[in-house]
């Protein structure tokens, strides 16, 4: 997108520059000029470029949706002013504050909600963001390719404490995940 945008921007600036440097050409009929500028550059060119971009974006969006999958682990994220608490479908009764534990290499569905105002769950390296809205549950599909620690922030302005609204996601390898669940059972 950046390359394409830069090219389009360069084209426009070039056309602008040339308008100043060229001597007025022998008069083309206004109709021909309309066809070039308005139908060609104004209509055809953007329509083709945008169609391609839109299709790409929609196809990509479809692949990111939380589709049914046997391998999915479900967790729960509850936002409040200004911290996060997390629950686990595979470890009923366990709650962690400020740290979300997930297995690496498996799709994870995060059931997101809020206890007070609108917040947003965002772990940039794992997925896009999804709002935490009081009274409803939004499901975000995330997946950590590698085990490790991933930074997360609240991403909807939620009051004076918003700047410090952050959490961590710890992705465990399969052994670490089993160990985590077993610790939770105790």
């Amino acid at each position, binding site marked *: 997108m950046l390359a394409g*945008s830069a090219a389009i921007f360069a084209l426009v600036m070039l056309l602008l520059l040339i308008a*100043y440097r060229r001597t007025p050409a022998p008069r083309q009929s206004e109709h021909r000029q309309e066809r070039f500028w*308005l139908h060609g550059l104004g*209509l055809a*060119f953007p329509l083709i470029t*945008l169609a391609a971009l*839109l299709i790409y974006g929609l196809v990509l969006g*479809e692949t990111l949706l939380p589709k049914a999958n046997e391998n999915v682990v479900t967790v729960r994220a509850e936002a409040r002013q200004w911290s996060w608490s997390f629950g686990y479908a595979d470890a009923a009764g366990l709650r962690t504050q400020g740290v979300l534990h997930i297995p690496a290499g498996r799709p994870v569905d995060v059931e997101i909600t809020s206890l007070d105002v609108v917040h947003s769950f965002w772990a940039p390296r794992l997925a*896009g963001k999804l709002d935490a*809205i009081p009274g409803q549950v939004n499901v975000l599909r995330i997946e950590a390719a590698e085990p490790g620690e991933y930074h997360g922030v609240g991403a909807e302005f939620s009051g004076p404490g918003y700047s410090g609204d952050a959490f961590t996601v710890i992705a465990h390898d399969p052994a670490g995940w089993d160990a985590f669940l077993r610790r939770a059972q105790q």
Partner: protein
Amino acid sequence: MNALARHRALSRIWSSEPGWRGVISTVNHSDIGRMFLLVATLFFLIGGVLAMLIRTQLATPRSAFVAPAIYDQIFTMHGTVMMFLFAIPLFEGAAVYLLPKLLGTRDLAYPRLSAYGFWCYVFGGLMLVFALLAGLAPDSGWFMYPPLSSSAHSPGVNADFWLIGVTFVEVSAIAAAVEICVSILKFRAPGMSLDLMPIFAWYALVTALMILMGFPPLILGSILLELERAFGLPFFESALGGSPLLWQHLFWLFGHPEVYIIFLPAAGVISTVLPVMARTTLLGYRWVVAAAVALAFLSFGLWVHHMFATGIPHMGLAFFSAASTLVAVPTGIQIFAWLGTLWKGQPRLTLPMLYIIGFFFTFVIGGLTGVMVAIVPFDWQAHDTAFVTAHLHYVLFGGFVFPMLAGLYYWLPQLTGRKRFFRIGEMAFWLIFLGFNGAFLAMHWVGLLGQRRRIAWYPVDAGWTAINLFSSISSFVMAIGVAMVVFDIALHALLAIRGSRNPWGAGTLEWAMPTPPAAYNFASIPIVGDREPLARDPALANKIARGEYFLGEPRGDSRETLTVDAASGRPEALVIFPGNSTLPITLAAATGAAFLAALIRAYWIVPLALLLVVGISLRWGWSQHAAAYHGIQNVGRATLLPQAIETDRSPGWWGSAFLLGADAVLYGSLFFGYAFLWTVGPNWPPPQWLSLSVLELAFGLIGAAVAAIDLHAAARAASRSASLWRELLIAFAGAAMTIAALAMALTRAAQLTDYAYGATIFVMIAYALIHAAIAAIMICSLAYRTLRGGAAPPRTSNVNIVRLWTDYAAFVAATSLIATQFSSYLT
């Protein structure tokens, strides 16, 4: 009568009073336009200072400049001031000042309404400035999402300042929009058919229609949120059947068209100024008009792209992603039409052209990043980051501020009659251009690195410090540039020498008058046969001054102009305008008193203030009633025309029609809210429904039908010059029946308002009740005039206006009764 005598006679008739008395009583569009522009510029400077405070805070990571609570007020007010108190009023000022001149007429359709709109803007703006200075400014972000902005999480009066102050200012915008629509369609020079209208008039018409459609959802949302905060009606609270998303839908239904309402007039300025700078005509006038109309409608189909992260299903998002990418097409048509115009002509590098080049550079970048965020997966990362802040400033500053500065320098000789001498403007441009890009270009990057918007501080180790510091320093450079522009304009207005009348060699009518313009614009109203009348006939200005066209002989003390047929420009009627009046500022003060009373929760004052509003409005409505003369008049060039108020559809009728259009959008938004909570909102069905009352339903429907039918009968009687009082009496009885039925339903609904369903039907019934009351008051006032008789019984045009309001009130009463009484049948 020679030109000088004509000028003196017309000046005497059209002038405002001198000094401060003149400021509060002027109804002249040039005065009011200048006043709007001046106040809007002041608010731009206030918004700019707030921006500098933001950049000071963000220049370093853990800045101790202001505490987060104060910072939240600062950025909320920066957005609020810029969007509501600067951008829209600047357009209003430009439109109010320029349109009558461009269209070849003497004033806008409703001179006193222009003044009323201005004073509402000033009083509403003062409320918000007071809040800022008192540390009580709203602090939930300029889009005020509940529950953060609800009373539980924003307990102070701050949010109420926003809800009430902004709604007050929006009254001003609606008034201006109604007036602009009617003025462009009916108040033009004879011969100016639609295809001969200056392109700016097309853009202004489209923008005004957008305001009428786009502002009501926010007005409704603000009313609902204020009701929630003040009386606990839980529209946006999930636990009680409401939904925070309802606010977001209502807000963005306004919010997205709002940014196109801001862009389109600026595009109109470019379409006007650029061809003159290139010494040619605009390429593809028809395509540009079509592109503006397409852009306007498309912009109403984008609003959910502000909500891509709220959990709406992907198909729903896809509709809006598709529309959001497509909106680049009509925008692109205009850009390439402008580039093609430059290629067609011989562009010169003047100061307005420099700003237009600045526009091309900046707005195109903004448009390209806009297409990026239109792609849903990209937006899921970029939403609520500094990337969006950078994007929106590129399109708003590039797409509005640069073109308006170009327009300022273009029309400056017309405003002041002086010749630009000091070259400060060029230096200011470079400071602004470089400062702006320095402030916002790298902001895209830091947003993609993860910097969120609206944060008061960021971590030292984030790696964002260098970019933020550079951005802050650049913003100060930009501020210096803006200050230089202010200084330049002030120097010019005070010290520059007199210049020639048409220094740019433009072809449109605003250059065919003395500069600075006289209060009456045109000594005689010209006949137009070309898109560039002045280019076709360079002697036009002299012919106009010599009175060779219409209305060149002033009659007594009357301020006269003509209305034309909307499509063909054929002259239709003579209009006599009201003179200087303090009714507008008085009505604005009474309106403001009602709003202020609601703000400070002194609710007992509200009905008193509203009574005052009704009284002043009635006085206003009837003050033009006894015309100076009756019947057909000679308007010059052997043309005989009726007076507008003696036709069936006076300009007042058209104004009412457009206003009721906006009102209908508000009503439709209410139904949307009802449907939304019923289907998508959580916690539905409510614990208790409103039960059906056949009595209320029957009384209400019959009363509504009776009132509407009898007003139609009254209109027929008036056109036969027969007596109306029987029909009006029956109509009033019908209205009274409907009011009684609605009042009974309202008291029952009031028992259910602790749940969102009950709150919604309460508002629906109250809305119908208010409109029934308005219709009843109008019918009474007509009846009073009829019974008093005398030299001035109500005319057909008056009855037709009341008929319009009664029809609407009947429609609303019927639909709201049916929707609410049968609501228990919804599952």
